[in-house]
């Protein structure tokens, strides 16, 4: 599990850890039953306070993303949960917002943007999608 945090992000560190673990779960890089690193090891790796990592793990547990098994560690729980869908939506919203901002600055309207997305999507779907 590789996660990175930054003080310039503006989001509290524990929240950055929470978001990134959720992202890894939603994107399939962490699967059900995978073990998260122990608090102390992740803290030393990220160079953050262990209390910060512990708080992130507690938050993830209360949201049902991970389960903590006494003495064994922290594991990713059932990923088919609705939370995973909610998280996927959240991630997509972020990307969409950035795309909308960009296109509005370039003077491209939403209708044209949708058309572009559809065109690109066809390129993706066609086998060995040719590059434009």
């Amino acid at each position: 599990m590789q996660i990175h945090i930054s003080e310039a992000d503006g989001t509290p560190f524990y929240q950055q850890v929470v978001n990134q673990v959720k992202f890894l779960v939603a994107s399939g890089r962490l699967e059900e039953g995978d073990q998260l690193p122990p608090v102390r090891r992740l803290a030393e790796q990220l160079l953050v306070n262990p209390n910060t990592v512990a708080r992130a793990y507690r938050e993830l547990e209360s949201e049902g993303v991970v389960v903590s098994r006494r003495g064994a560690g922290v594991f990713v729980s059932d990923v088919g949960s609705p939370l995973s869908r909610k998280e996927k939506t959240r991630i997509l919203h972020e990307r969409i917002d950035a795309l909308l901002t960009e296109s509005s600055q370039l003077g491209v309207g939403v209708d044209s943007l949708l058309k572009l997305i559809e065109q690109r999507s066809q390129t993706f779907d066609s086998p060995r999608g040719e590059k434009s």
Partner: protein
Amino acid sequence: MSESAVEIKGVSRSFGKTIALDEVDLSVSKGSVVGLVGENGAGKTTLLKHVLGLFKARTGTVRVFGKDPVADPESVLGEIGYLSEVRDLPDWMKIGELMSYTKAFFPSWDDAFAEELREMFELSPDQKVKTLSRGQRARAGLIAAIAHRPQLLVLDEPSSGLDPVVRRDILAAVIRTVADEGRTVLFSSHLLDEVQRVSDHVAMLHLGKMLLSSPMDDVLTSHHRLTVRFEQPLDSPLKIDGVLRCEGEGREWTVLCNGDRASVEHCIAQLSGELVDRAAPTLDEIFVARMND
């Protein structure tokens, strides 16, 4: 309710006509990391020296694990690991001698841990302290400060003047210390990104007064950085309650505020200012704004 490792109440201190500490309070709870920040000469070192019992509080009280470090130095100092700003190590000793010398003061000295650190830091037992580089010196000082696994680690500017690799070693040592159940770290630093990373609590000294002492998350979430665009150019920075710093020119300004964001935003709206961006500032930005306020 967590117990305190350090409890400082109403401590004042002057050197001649200079007031170094002015009615300072600070409570450090067990198991936490407290970052002490402030400009040069703000009183950070003076405060830390009171915790170590090197200065006797003339007014106010200092308690470390419930004891007075001046009246009861043996029992207090045995629990503390200290790395001073000037890293005053005995120059004439070799690393190996420094380690056995320091060990003699601390019954809880852990030989295996000390050796592990020495090897990790690539220090040879035969090297003379006098010949060490600045970074090696900091590492040697760190071994002497943490190999007895102190309950309280006090670091005065541990990172100043060091390269990123040594700074990383020091931060990792801080983290390892608190990861051991219930241990506490109190450190002063100018590197606010480091303080933001490792501290649970931040204490800001300014001209001998404690300007702010709060949990890190509260400090970060109670300050806001607003980017504002006004209909008409402003010719001077905003003066509104809650605004700590206002920078910019013409129509676009960056405003750093704390506390009641809604009321600041309301004032801005009344001056026909449009909020273009709202973000959480870093500890560094908050510090600069507070110092100039």
